[in-house]
């Protein structure tokens, strides 16, 4: 008996509101994962999440080295926030993280966005946040389908078997 899920996931709507590497990649991997399973996918980037779809910022995402309780040194000790506050450390650690991901064949943010749209996923920017950060459509990645409000996004999320995920 070939197993078939009784109520399969039909649509996944992701909202990405933070701009650190781990938060952006969480949203992107989840979006791409859904697209790869043939699930209709829509991603909504808002507030600092807009960095992930802004041409100037998307290749320079950082992770926090100050006040990040989960940050550890390579030998497993906790990463002291004082060390993280030294100029250049945040950029260095972030670059290291991006390198590690490249070695694991995890795509860069622009490539990830292309992969998501190539599979039929749609990417949206939050109008409120775009206005707040004074951005224009040209500042955003070409993969962005449209700049819409949250109400319009909810309108796209209807249907049975839909899940909305906030990261």
């Amino acid at each position, binding site marked *: *008996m*070939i*197993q078939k899920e009784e109520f399969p996931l039909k649509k996944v709507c992701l909202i990405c509101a933070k701009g650190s590497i781990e938060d952006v990649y969480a949203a992107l*991997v989840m979006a*791409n*994962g859904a697209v*790869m*399973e*043939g699930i209709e996918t829509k991603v909504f980037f808002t507030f600092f999440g807009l960095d992930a779809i802004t041409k100037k910022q998307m290749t320079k995402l950082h992770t926090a080295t100050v006040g990040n309780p989960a940050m550890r040194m390579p030998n497993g000790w906790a990463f002291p926030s004082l060390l993280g506050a030294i100029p250049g450390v945040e950029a260095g650690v972030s670059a290291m993280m991006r390198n590690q991901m490249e070695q694991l*064949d*995890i*795509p860069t943010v622009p*490539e990830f966005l*292309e*992969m998501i749209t*190539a*599979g*039929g996923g749609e990417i949206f920017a939050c109008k409120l946040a775009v206005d707040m950060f004074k951005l224009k459509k040209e500042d955003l990645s070409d993969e962005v389908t449209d700049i819409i409000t949250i109400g319009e996004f909810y309108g796209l999320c209807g249907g049975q078997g839909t899940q909305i995920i906030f990261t």
Partner: protein
Amino acid sequence: MTQLTYAGVVLEVNEEGYMLEKSQWTKEIAKAIAQEANIELTEKHFEVIEFLRDRVAKGESLTIRSIGKSGIVDIKGFYALFPGAPLKLATRIGGLPKPVSCV
């Protein structure tokens, strides 16, 4: 574990439809499995399947990114060849194990 017949050969498949005895794979079986999924296999399809089989034989992990970089077809094309869940479909048709990749 069920037995299904493709192209006149009886195959053992697991509960998701993946072939258990990988050595039994032939192009005819691939065509039959694809037929079930309403896909007509063309040269392009087989090129991609060969690429995937090569990678598995070499022990490399299957990622959708590697297919995009393979030069055989771009990612959009891959989704067009194997609609829905392309990597899962292509590996099932190609007699390969289900891919465990997040990318």
